[in-house]
C-alpha cells in the first residue's frame, strides 16, 4: 500500500531540509502557528499519503483552474506529492473504462480513508438526467463515492450552495452536496474559491487529520470567519462616508468605498481582502470593481450586482424595497390627507350630531 509522505519525499531525493520547509509551509497554509510545525512533521512522517477522489458535476471547472493556479510553490507539491489524486476527470491520464476502474479501485482499496473533493452541484430533477458520467447519474455516483469517504469537501459555490445552476428557477434541480449526504461536508464556497484557501483546507485535513472548525453554514471559520468588508483596504472610506457614486467619478479615481455601487463586501464572508488573488496581487475591490458576493448562497438571485438592495419582486428590475416603501409611504400620506379633508368637510355635521346627542340625554 501507500508510503508516508516522508518516505515518498526521500525516494524523490528531497533533502530533510526541504522536507522541513514543506512541513512549515503546510502548517502556515493550514493556519497553524509556528509551534505546530513539529506536529506537521510528525504527521507527514507517519501518515500514509491519503487517496483523493475529485468529482466533477454541474460546474465550469473554475475551481480546478483556481487550484492549479495557486502561486505558492508548495501548492504543486500538495497536489502531486502529498495527495494521491487517483481520480479527477480533468487532470488524470486514463480515460473511459480505465478511469472508471481507477475510481472503483480507489474506493475499494481505501475504505474509510479516502478524501472526496466535489466540484459542482448535483441535479436532482427528472431522475438526475441533467448530469451523467459513464451512464450513471451524478447523484448515484456521489452516493457510491461518499459511502466510505473519510472526509468530504465541497469545492466552490456550486457544490456548497448551488451557485448559478441553483439560481431561480433552477430548472435542473441543482442541489448542493451537504443536502445529499449525512456526512459533514466542508463547504469552501466562492466562484471560484481562492486557491490558497482551497490548499489551506486540504492541508488542515491532512495535517491534523480532522475537519477544521466550521461555521453554521459549514464553512471553515479560519477562512470564512470575517466579511470581505472587515479587512477591506477601502474600509476607512466607508466609515468616513466617502463613496463612489458612479463608475467614472472623482471618488472612483480616488479609490473611495464602493458600497453605493452595490458592493457585497459587507454581506460576504471570504478571505479575499486578506489573501487576495493571483499570488496576493489584487482582489476585485482593489481592481476598482465591487464585490458580487460569489461565496454567498443565492448570490445570483440577489441582483442586480450594481445595486445596494436587491430588486423587489414584481415591481420591475430597478425597483428596490426603498421604491416600494416610498410609494407606500406617499400613498399613506395621501390617504391620511384625504381623510383629514373629508373630516373637515363633515366638521359641522359631526359637531351638530354631538350636540343633538347631548340634547337627547
Amino acid at each position, binding site marked *: 500500500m501507500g508510503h508516508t509522505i516522508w518516505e515518498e519525499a526521500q525516494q524523490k531525493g528531497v533533502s530533510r531540509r526541504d522536507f522541513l520547509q514543506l512541513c512549515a509551509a503546510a502548517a502556515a497554509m493550514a493556519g497553524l502557528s509556528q509551534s505546530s510545525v513539529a506536529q506537521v512533521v510528525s504527521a507527514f512522517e507517519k501518515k500514509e499519503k491519503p487517496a483523493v477522489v475529485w468529482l466533477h458535476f454541474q460546474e465550469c471547472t473554475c475551481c480546478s483552474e483556481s487550484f492549479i493556479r495557486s502561486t505558492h510553490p508548495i501548492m504543486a507539491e500538495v497536489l502531486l506529492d502529498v495527495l494521491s489524486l487517483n481520480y479527477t476527470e480533468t487532470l488524470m491520464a486514463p480515460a473511459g473504462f480505465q478511469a472508471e476502474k481507477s475510481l472503483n479501485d480507489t474506493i475499494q482499496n481505501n475504505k474509510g480513508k479516502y478524501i472526496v473533493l466535489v466540484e459542482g452541484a448535483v441535479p436532482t430533477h427528472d431522475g438526475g438526467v441533467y448530469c451523467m458520467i459513464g451512464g450513471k447519474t451524478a447523484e448515484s455516483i456521489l452516493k457510491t463515492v461518499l459511502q466510505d469517504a473519510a472526509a468530504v469537501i465541497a469545492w466552490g459555490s456550486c457544490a456548497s450552495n448551488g451557485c448559478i445552476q441553483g439560481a431561480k428557477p433552477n430548472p435542473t434541480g441543482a442541489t448542493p452536496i451537504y443536502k445529499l449526504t449525512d456526512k459533514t461536508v466542508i463547504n469552501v464556497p466562492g466562484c471560484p474559491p481562492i486557491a490558497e484557501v482551497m490548499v489551506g483546507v486540504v492541508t488542515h485535513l491532512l495535517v491534523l487529520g480532522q475537519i477544521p472548525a466550521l461555521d453554521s453554514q459549514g464553512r471553515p471559520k479560519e477562512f470564512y470567519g470575517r466579511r470581505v468588508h*472587515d479587512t477591506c483596504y477601502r474600509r476607512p472610506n466607508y*466609515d*468616513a462616508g466617502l463613496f463612489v457614486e458612479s463608475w467614472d467619478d472623482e471618488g472612483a479615481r480616488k479609490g473611495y468605498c464602493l458600497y453605493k455601487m452595490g458592493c457585497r463586501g459587507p454581506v460576504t464572508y471570504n478571505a479575499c481582502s486578506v489573501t487576495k488573488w493571483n499570488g496576493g496581487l489584487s482582489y476585485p475591490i482593489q481592481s476598482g470593481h465591487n464585490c458580487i458576493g460569489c461565496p454567498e448562497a*443565492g448570490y445570483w438571485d440577489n441582483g442586480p450586482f450594481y445595486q445596494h438592495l436587491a430588486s423587489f419582486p414584481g415591481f420591475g428590475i430597478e425597483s428596490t424595497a426603498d421604491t416600494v*416603501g416610498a410609494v407606500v*409611504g406617499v400613498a399613506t400620506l395621501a390617504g391620511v390627507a384625504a381623510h383629514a379633508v373629508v*373630516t373637515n368637510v363633515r366638521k*359641522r355635521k359631526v359637531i351638530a350630531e354631538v350636540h343633538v346627542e347631548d340634547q337627547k340625554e
Partner: protein
Amino acid sequence: MTMSTPEIGAGNAIPAKQPFEYRRVYVWELPVRVYHWINALALVTLCVTGYLIGAPIRAFYAAEAYQQYWFGWVRFIHFAAAYVYVFNFLARLYWGFTGNKYARWSAFLPLKKSRRQEIVDVVKADVLQTQMHGPISTGHNALAGLIYFFTFLAFVAQTITGFALYSSMSSSWLPRLFTWVVPLLGGDFGVRFWHHLFLWFFVTFVIVHIYLAFYHDYIEGRGTVSSIIGGWKFEREKSDQ
C-alpha cells in the same frame, strides 16, 4: 372630579342645557408614558439613521478618509438607539404583566366578542366615518390594541434581523445570540433585505398612528392626545346612573 361638556363650536345655535358628568380616568401610568416617548424618539432615530445606512449621503467635505467619521457616526447612533429601543421594549413587556388593566397584555388582543365587535365599529368610524355603536374603550380601542400587537411583532422581527446583521461585527453575547438567523434568511444579504423592508412598515405606522391619534382626539373628545403626556382620559358617566 366632574366637568361639564365644553361648548363645542362657539356661537352654535344649540346650547348645552345641562352639564354632563365626566370622570377623570388615570389610563397611562408613568412607565407607559415614558416607554412611549423613549420608543418614539428611538424609533425616529432608527428610521432616519437606518435609511441613511441604506442610502448614505457622502461626506460633505474631506478628501481623505482620516478627516471624517461621518458614516461611522450614523452607524454608531443607529446601534446605540437600537439598544435603547430593545431594552425599552423589554421593560414594556414586563409592564404588560404588572401594569394597570389598560397596559396589560390582554388589552392588545381581541379576546372577547365585544372587543371584536369594537374592531368592526372602529374600522367603520375611521374609514367610513360613521358613528360608533357604543362607547369606545377608555384605553386602547380594540383595533388600536391589535395594531400595536402587530407592531410588537414587527419590533421583534426588526430586533432579530438587526442583531443578526450586527452579530458579525460584535463579539458580545447579546448580538451573538442571533447568528442562527443569518443562514435562515439566506445570508446577510437576505437579512439586510428584510431589515430594510421593515423600516417602511414603521414609517407607514408612524404616519397613520399620529393621524389617528389626532382624529380620535377629535371624534371622541376626551383628551386622547394629551393622555400620553399627562396620563388622564375622560369617561362620561352613564346618563341613567
